[in-house]
């Protein structure tokens, strides 16, 4: 597990996302309403770039002919076959216990000289950085 500095907090407005490569793995980092999340950018189904998918809510399981929309901004839908994943846990909506994508921790803190940086910016101890633990 490495601490990778992936950008200044100012580069991650709420609603934005960034795809980074850490140790050969493509990972999507999301700021959703001020909260950070990270998911492996490879759908476990057929290898699609999952983190390019739509961030959305979904229709919750309901009674016949009833539509209940919920969980707004908590779901990402794979851009190929439409599988829905819970962004916070990586679990699929249709089978949360058996089918999921890997998640990573993201923190916002000062960076240190020992941190790995993925960008060419200078890391200082001033200000806050987004750090991916992957």
């Amino acid at each position: 597990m490495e601490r990778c500095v992936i950008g200044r907090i100012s580069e991650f407005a709420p609603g934005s996302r960034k795809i980074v490569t850490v140790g050969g793995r493509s990972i999507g980092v999301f700021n959703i309403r001020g909260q950070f999340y990270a998911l492996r950018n490879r759908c476990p189904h057929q290898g699609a770039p999952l983190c390019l998918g739509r961030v959305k809510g979904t229709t919750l399981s309901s009674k016949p002919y009833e539509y209940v929309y919920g969980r707004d901004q908590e779901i990402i839908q794979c851009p190929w076959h439409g599988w829905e994943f819970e962004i916070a846990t990586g679990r699929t909506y249709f089978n949360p216990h058996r089918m999921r994508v890997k998640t990573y921790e993201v923190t916002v803190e000062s960076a240190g000289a020992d941190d790995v940086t993925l960008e060419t910016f200078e890391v200082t101890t001033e200000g806050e950085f987004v750090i991916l633990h992957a």
Partner: protein
Amino acid sequence: MPERPKSTPIIDCDVHNRFKDRQMSALWPYLPRAYQEDVREWGINIPSVGYLNGGDRGYRGDSWPKEGFPGSDLDLMREQLLDAYNVEYAILLGQELRPLSTLPNADYAACLARAYNDYLLEHWLSTESRLRGAMLIATQDVPQAVEEIERVGRLPGIVEVLVSNGARLPYGNRYYHPVFEVCEALGLPFALHTGSEGAGINGQPSVAGHGSYYIENRQVRPQGYMTHLTSLIFEGVFEKFPKLRVVFIEGGYAWLAPFLWRLDADWKGLRHQTPWVRKPPSEYVWEHVRFTSQPLEEPEHPSHLLEVFKWNRAERTLMFSSDYAHWDFDSPVDAFPRLPDDLRRRIFYETASELYRFHAQTAPVPDLSRSTTSEPV
């Protein structure tokens, strides 16, 4: 995206090219003058059933070019499909005009088919050597369809004649036989692609009409294909046209063997009603019919597919297809369970290469502008 060492070449039997704009303005110059005002005023105007689709407006979310629809940008198609997976040949099956046999107006439909075929040759097949194309026919008027096959069916780059699963009559019906006659004479497979079930002038999509939801509509595909397959066999098409080949595209594959078990069993006691069916129905299939793979069935245990492949004689009957750039795209690297090398070669290359005679068709695509009979303006 796949970043792998150069893999062995494959053939992709179902790729969708689209027009850049919804109006299909690139098609207009290929239409006769008589239709140009109408098209300007009304659009191309082809019926659809009205179901939703999947993905991002029907396509892979990552397949939208900067401008226009997925499948309309050749560079992106190269990047995401041809180069990414080392596709030696990709067969273009069009998109917007495929349902033209749902139109009430037979002459307009025939004009659209001619215009599309000319457009396909000039805008796609002559611009990228890895592309091959299916020509469209309008089935409303068989003599015009035959004429069209004779007009463009011999041109390099055209590898099959394409219709939709949705139809007015099962395809074995004698109504269509002149089409098979010319397909056989020119060595062109007759291909069916999923779509148009219950649209326009076509029959109902199932024996009980329309389901309410798109997912139901997807499940009528094998029903249609079972109907067409039975019709082709029992109307004696393969006896009458022994060199004809038929391709079933995007209609499922795992249903085949159990269906043929039933058909062979029924035939033993009922063959006397159609005595021209000389062999068990399954034997006609092994010889004459090929299936494309996408969307490949996904059993709980992927290894179960290997059993199905044995039952279905996949080494003869199955050809890989991706359906690029539709949302239900099958990845050549991830859609299949691990296959023995020889079976993989059959499915991903050899069967299609033999069917479409690719090894014999490597001549460069010539300038086709003189072959068009429409009146570009």
